[in-house]
């Protein structure tokens, strides 16, 4: 967080056409500053200018130049700027980087006070398992789409989370193999559900999968959970009532 007093203002001059790994260079630099926790940064686009190559770049009425000057500015403490400078020089390439001493009269305040929504994040670290279930989009369970029923069943059984993916092509246990028409069109989609939880909880859920899935494949693999954070129910109460799961 920026404090009132001495600081450094950094200005980087780029050409709009410049790219970095296929993305506009200014957005790569902006991302870099953002994820390195810089207090704020502004990108402005010039309407005309020239640089080291002494070519005049201007936006004409008939032709919009893609080489207009771009300026990125940010203000940070000297230590922070120095820690960023090496990478910035590398990113800016042929562009100019300027630094000037400045004084922060009043630092900007975050628009919302940064009070954490949950004081405690539940964090499970370590060994867990990933369960992937491959079924077909047309599969039904008690007249509702099987994948939706599985998601509801997982929620009702307190599995930590599940994500449903729709494939664009595929075949497998859930689909009869059409040898004459091998590639079935995409609206007969393959569905993959991917759920992660402890091995015990996933094994406990298996009898339900047995009942619900008539044709399909269930795949288990070991994973390491690096981070698991969720918003506690108490804070959700104010925003939305939790709808009970209908079975």
């Amino acid at each position, binding site marked *: 967080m920026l404090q009132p007093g001495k600081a450094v203002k950094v200005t980087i001059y780029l050409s709009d056409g410049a790219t970095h*790994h*296929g*993305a506009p260079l200014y957005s790569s630099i902006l991302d870099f500053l953002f994820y390195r926790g810089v207090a704020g940064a502004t990108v402005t686009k010039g309407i005309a200018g020239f640089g080291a190559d002494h070519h005049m770049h201007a936006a004409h009425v008939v032709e919009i130049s893609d080489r207009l000057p771009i300026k990125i500015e940010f203000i940070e403490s000297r230590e922070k700027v120095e820690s960023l400078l090496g990478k910035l020089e590398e990113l800016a390439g042929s562009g100019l980087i300027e630094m000037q001493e400045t004084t922060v009269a009043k630092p900007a305040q975050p628009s919302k006070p940064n009070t954490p929504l949950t004081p405690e994040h539940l964090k499970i670290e370590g060994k867990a398992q990933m369960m*992937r279930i*491959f079924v077909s989009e047309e599969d039904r369970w008690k007249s509702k789409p099987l994948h939706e029923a599985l998601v509801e069943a997982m929620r009702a059984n307190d599995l930590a989370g599940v994500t449903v*993916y*729709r*494939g*664009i*092509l*595929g*075949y*497998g*246990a859930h689909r009869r*193999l059409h040898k004459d028409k*091998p*590639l079935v069109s995409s609206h007969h989609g*393959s569905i*993959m559900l991917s759920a992660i939880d402890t091995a015990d909880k996933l094994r406990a859920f*298996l009898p339900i*999968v*047995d009942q619900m*899935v*008539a*044709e*399909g*494949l*269930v*795949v*288990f*693999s070991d994973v390491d959970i690096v981070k698991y954070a969720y918003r506690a129910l108490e804070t959700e109460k104010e925003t939305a009532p939790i709808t009970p799961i209908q079975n």
Partner: protein
Amino acid sequence: MKEQFTARMLRVHFGEDDRWHGKPLHEAILSKCMELGIAEAVVFRGIEGYGSASRIRHATHWPLSKDAPIQMSIIDTVEQIGKLTPWLDSMVEEGLVAASAVEVIRYSQKQ
């Protein structure tokens, strides 16, 4: 019918505009999987990503843009996957193939 066995899962990552002998690469790999009798193969289209070529792939203008990231999940026994990997070596010019050991339960209604 329910069978349980140890297997291997491949995840193959490449781009939707990648081709093999003029055919979309994912269709070519899927056909090869069927030909080899691989148990399960599904193609997924990502909405954004980047990979070995360091290009940012977008599917934002889908269906106009075809440059979306593709991920294929292929599952079968170690022996069956072993038949496929030499093919992947020659078919995937730019991409990533990741393998992991998995345990599989297969439900089928075969008589």
